[in-house]
């Protein structure tokens, strides 16, 4: 090694460390602190006392539970399905030669599309009157569905649930489309990292294709699979603009005032939006702390499991 102690390194690191301190480290500390301040006023910085009041308020708030349910739906329903379709797509891509680059480019397009713009397009595709989906339904003789509609939901629980399920479906379709890109590329990278020799040896032994897939591809791909799962779940925990794009900042179809489709980050942003009223910012902080704890927990689980059962190259 030629490397020797080099104090110039601090000059190289100075900009990164400075920005990190101001915009990452200090905010984390401060947000944790703020989350315990009761009756915190943003403008004056005054508060009554340190307590768990903000956490208590959140845990008693119906909307927060709605946010958790919707966020969990994205993380634990949408993510597995989009992983499965991404894995199949990557396997297919990996076994063809011609047009591979072309398909990869196509599949990557949703990733470089503005989230708000894409959400608007999906809202229009599912539009009750002018949407593509209803047009196709009518063509095959099915009655059009009011996909994003809150008509009559305030009066009837049944209608509310029906409307909610339809909105979840729209969100699901959007998340499938939106989530495919990155996962396909990551899976493809993982597949290409598996050494050819294993396949060659198996083929020489006359192993069947299905068995090769199960005994070689699946175990050797497991680190990638796990990495994709955890990062996707973490991204899903932070879902926000997707929901705003589909359902606007009221987090629901027109006619809904229960914030039907709100997510945890939506909850934080909402509280932050009314920063002038006492306690709002500290409630937002407490929700953010809960979010960070769940993300850290997931990351810890990732490291633990990666070390234990995932096969290494």
């Amino acid at each position, binding site marked *: 090694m030629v490397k020797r102690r080099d*104090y110039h390194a601090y000059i190289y690191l100075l900009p990164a460390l400075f*920005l990190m301190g101001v915009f990452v480290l200090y905010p984390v500390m401060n947000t944790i602190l703020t989350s315990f301040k009761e009756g915190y006023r943003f403008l004056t910085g005054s508060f009554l006392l340190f307590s768990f009041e903000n956490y208590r308020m959140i845990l008693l708030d119906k909307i927060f539970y709605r946010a958790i349910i919707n966020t969990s739906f994205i993380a634990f329903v949408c993510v597995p399905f989009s992983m499965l379709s991404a894995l199949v797509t990557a396997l297919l891509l990996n076994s063809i030669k011609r047009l591979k680059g072309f398909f990869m480019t196509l599949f990557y397009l949703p990733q470089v599309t503005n989230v708000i713009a894409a959400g608007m397009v999906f809202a229009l595709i599912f539009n009750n009157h002018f949407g593509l989906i209803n047009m196709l339904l009518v063509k095959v003789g099915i009655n059009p569905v009011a996909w994003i509609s809150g008509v009559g939901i305030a009066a009837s629980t049944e209608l509310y649930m029906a409307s909610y399920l339809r909105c979840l479906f729209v969100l699901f379709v959007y998340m499938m489309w939106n989530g495919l890109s990155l996962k396909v590329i990551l899976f493809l990278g993982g597949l290409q990292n598996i050494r050819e020799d294993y396949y060659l040896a198996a083929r020489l032994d006359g192993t069947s294709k299905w068995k090769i897939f199960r005994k070689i591809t699946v175990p050797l791909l497991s680190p990638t699979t796990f990495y994709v799962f955890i990062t996707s779940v973490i991204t899903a925990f932070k879902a926000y603009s997707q929901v705003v794009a589909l359902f606007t900042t009221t987090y629901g179809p027109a006619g809904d005032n229960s914030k039907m489709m709100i997510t945890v980050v939506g909850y*934080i942003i909402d509280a932050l939006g009314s920063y002038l009223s006492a306690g709002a910012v500290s409630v937002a902080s407490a929700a953010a702390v809960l979010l960070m704890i769940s993300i850290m927990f997931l990351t810890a689980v990732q490291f633990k499991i990666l070390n234990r059962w995932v096969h290494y190259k």
Partner: protein
Amino acid sequence: MKERQLHTIFYVILVLTALLVLIPFAWMLLTALKSEGEALMVPPILFPKRPMVSNFILALEIAPFLSYLSNTVIVAILVVLGSTTVTVLASYAFAWMDFPIKNILFFMILGSMMIPQEMLIITNFMTIARLGWMNSYKALVLPYVIHAFNIFLLRQTMLQVPNDLFIASRIDGLGHFRFLRKVVLPICKSTLYTTMLLSLIWIWNTFAWPNLVTTKDSLRMISNGLSNAFTVNTGSIRYELQMSATTLVTIPLILIFIALRKHIFEGMKRGGIKG
């Protein structure tokens, strides 16, 4: 089943998937070209009779769309320049220099990747407000200049530069900075482009932060402008103009991506997960 038949099935499935991915783009473009009457037809029609290219100009007039666009481009350029500089310097130090508390600092950077942006938004908002930076480019740019994942990604790639090159460049009398510029950066070009695109996507999509720190319409960025100007719940929405606007927002990034796609895929693969 024969190998060839199997491959045909593979291609059929891939083409179908590709079509599903492309449908939203197609619907966006087709709607963008419809006339006002055609966009409101029930049931809707697929193709406009006469493509209304003028919709794009109308969409630009409805909202100060050009100003949203130019704001986003200015912020994007500043962020990409700043963030690339900061990232390159930091990842070089982590990859090729040795200094006290190096590991502690690196783990700090790694750890910060776990922290959700939303956790930071609250205090950063207070910081910006107290500094009196509301409604300024500084507020829009600075928090995005630090990008922990990019530092991590680029450092991983820089570590793969052979040590012999470092020794050779030392013998030739090159210091760290020239070694970085003449040897390391050219080798890490793909990853560098990847980090730039990641920053760019980040800025292009960013929604919550600019919404908080800008109140003036003249400083709005594209996502916010788009959502404010074209999703008004009251009255009727001009869908064809909304879609023209989304088309205008979508195209620049797609073009940049297509131009850089070889590097992006390469960079992702290299920086990707290792077993």
